[in-house]
């Protein structure tokens, strides 16, 4: 990050002149706003509300090798400024996805980030291999899935399991296509998982996935979701997501990050950029406002313009700089000269005789 002069709004840059581009491990996207996995299907349904060629791209709903029916309903419960979901990764399987969904994205000139998910390291490796020669700008690895080879333990909650998936994916994935690991916040030390993924070959990190929650229906007096637990998302988790981005950027400042979690406005997106994200994904807000991806991109551009910032990349991680002192510091005392004591000085008094 270079030196940045924050100017006043008086000499703001016209929005059209802002460089919004995001360099994600060598692949440059003209815009830093993406749709988050699981919140945009494979893009097509959002085309009536957004020019999808004008945003960074679509991160597709996590795809697996085989078709999946998903879980029984109810799959969703609204919460304060958020929602809980337990869909179960319903999807058509990789072959139908390539033929129908990815082809549509390519035909429509929409940049595709393909999210893959599996139940074993081998599943992930096969999926990554199947993406060779496909119109894929990036691969995002959804590691928040149970590992059937380890009693259903979630890959993302264990540094070793996360690393095993990422190194297998990096080995079989098309070269030149960045591999991003999507991290779960439900861990003791997210920096440890982040480091393990990067050491295993991840070119960048997406954070965060949803955090586990439960809602209880007070009429039926049972959990509201058929799956009992679900992933909590939406503005309610934004500070948690920002904290994760902050910690990971502080530990791994050279690693490109995609910031995800409760972004609803351009200013929310700017917070993630300032915390260290090179790009952002918007998810749950799409359910509220299907035109949110294009709107947030516009709002972010205006927010940069108002602050006189000409290049988005210049302010990635800017919030980590030391605070600017509000008053000039006093020079240190020099030599043997004692500083003039401050007034009033402490004065002691003798006991008065009776």
């Amino acid at each position, binding site marked *: 990050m270079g030196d940045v002069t924050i100017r006043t709004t008086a000499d703001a840059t016209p929005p059209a002149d802002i460089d919004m581009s995001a360099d994600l491990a060598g692949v440059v996207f003209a815009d830093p706003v993406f749709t988050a996995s699981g919140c945009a299907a494979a893009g097509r*349904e959002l085309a009536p509300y957004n020019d999808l060629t004008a945003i960074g791209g679509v991160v597709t709903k996590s795809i697996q090798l*085989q078709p999946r029916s998903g879980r029984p309903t109810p799959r969703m419960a*609204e919460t304060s400024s958020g929602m809980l979901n337990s869909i179960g990764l*319903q*999807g058509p399987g990789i072959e139908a996805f390539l033929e129908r969904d990815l082809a549509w994205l390519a035909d429509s000139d929409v940049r595709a980030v393909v999210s893959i998910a599996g*139940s074993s390291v081998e599943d992930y490796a096969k999926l990554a291999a199947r993406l060779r020669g496909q119109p894929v700008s990036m691969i995002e690895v959804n590691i928040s899935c149970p590992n*059937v080879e380890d009693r259903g333990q979630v890959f993302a909650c264990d540094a070793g399991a996360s690393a095993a998936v990422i190194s297998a994916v990096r080995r079989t994935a098309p070269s030149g296509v960045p591999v991003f690991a999507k991290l779960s916040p439900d861990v003791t030390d997210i920096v440890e998982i982040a480091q393990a993924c990067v050491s295993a070959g991840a070119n960048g990190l997406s954070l965060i996935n949803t955090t586990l929650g439960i809602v209880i229906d007070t009429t039926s007096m049972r959990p509201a979701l058929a799956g009992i637990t679900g992933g909590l998302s939406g503005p309610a988790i934004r500070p948690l997501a920002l904290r994760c981005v902050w910690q990971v950027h502080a530990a791994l400042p050279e690693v490109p990050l995609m910031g995800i979690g409760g972004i609803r406005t351009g200013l929310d997106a700017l917070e993630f950029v300032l915390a260290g994200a090179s790009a952002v994904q918007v998810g749950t807000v799409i*359910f509220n406002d*299907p035109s949110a991806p294009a709107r947030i991109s516009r709002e972010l551009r205006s927010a940069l313009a108002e602050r006189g910032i000409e290049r988005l990349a210049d302010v990635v991680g800017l919030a980590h700089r030391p605070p600017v002192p509000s008053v000039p510091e006093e020079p240190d005392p020099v030599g043997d000269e004692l500083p003039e004591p401050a007034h009033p000085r402490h004065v002691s008094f003798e006991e008065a005789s009776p």
Partner: protein
Amino acid sequence: MAVTQAKGPVQVRGEVFSVKQVGDYLAMTVVASGIAEQTRPGQFVAVAVSGDDGSMLLRRAFSIYQVADRGVYGGTVEFVFAVHGKGTAWLARRRAHDPIDVVGPLGRPFKLPAQPAHCVLVGGGYGAAPLFMLADALRKRGCRVDFVLGAANADRLFGALDAKRMAASVAFTTDDGSYGEQGRVSDVLPEVIERTRADVVYACGPMPMLAAVQRVAGEAYAGAGIPVYAAVEESMACGVGVCMTCVLPVVGDDGQTRMLRSCVDGPVFAGDRIRWDALGTVPDDAVGAAAMKVH
């Protein structure tokens, strides 16, 4: 006012035209140019609640009751709702000129018969709302229209006057007998089908009612059965096809059961394609159910 003829659903930041009490329900009319002009019977709108910075993120889906061209105001869309929770309570507090964000028209409309046919329209509670636009469209095609309207009580019957004005006959049922026959719509439906020599049944209302309508229509004419088109009510988060929460098991042309989204694949389905006995579950023979056994 020039209106661009958009193709497909649009998001309109419109304003409330009016909110009226209708029996136990509320009817809200919103100025939403671009939606009204495109609406076909059975389609719905998804309405954002609690404002741009509000804490309720999920859109509420409502069948479109009627649309109108109000000249200088542009097109308006009217939908009917009951106050069930915080979101509908917020809607009930809106007043004329309040801003409101509406997406529509959404979903697949009712299929209309190609030739004049005898049609029975069955509605439960305010679920009957989309049937009146349908009745209009059917009558324009020279169809005979008969109504069966049911509800828990007289105050929860919706559209009785509309039905009487439009239909050759109307049968009413209430659970408590406060209006019409005491009982359910499915109790009187066999007689109505027979009397009107019905060719098709259109239905909208709660899921158990729709299941009962399908059962009755499937047994009509000594078991020969007549087709049912049912507009389902599944809870939705987005209404536009991206959240995957409003799914139900539906049999396709290939005989395979799939978990389809009621927002984009419905809300209107052929009644004999819905796995009524398996609602709320994923049948073992559904496409992709096997993969769920792994995790």
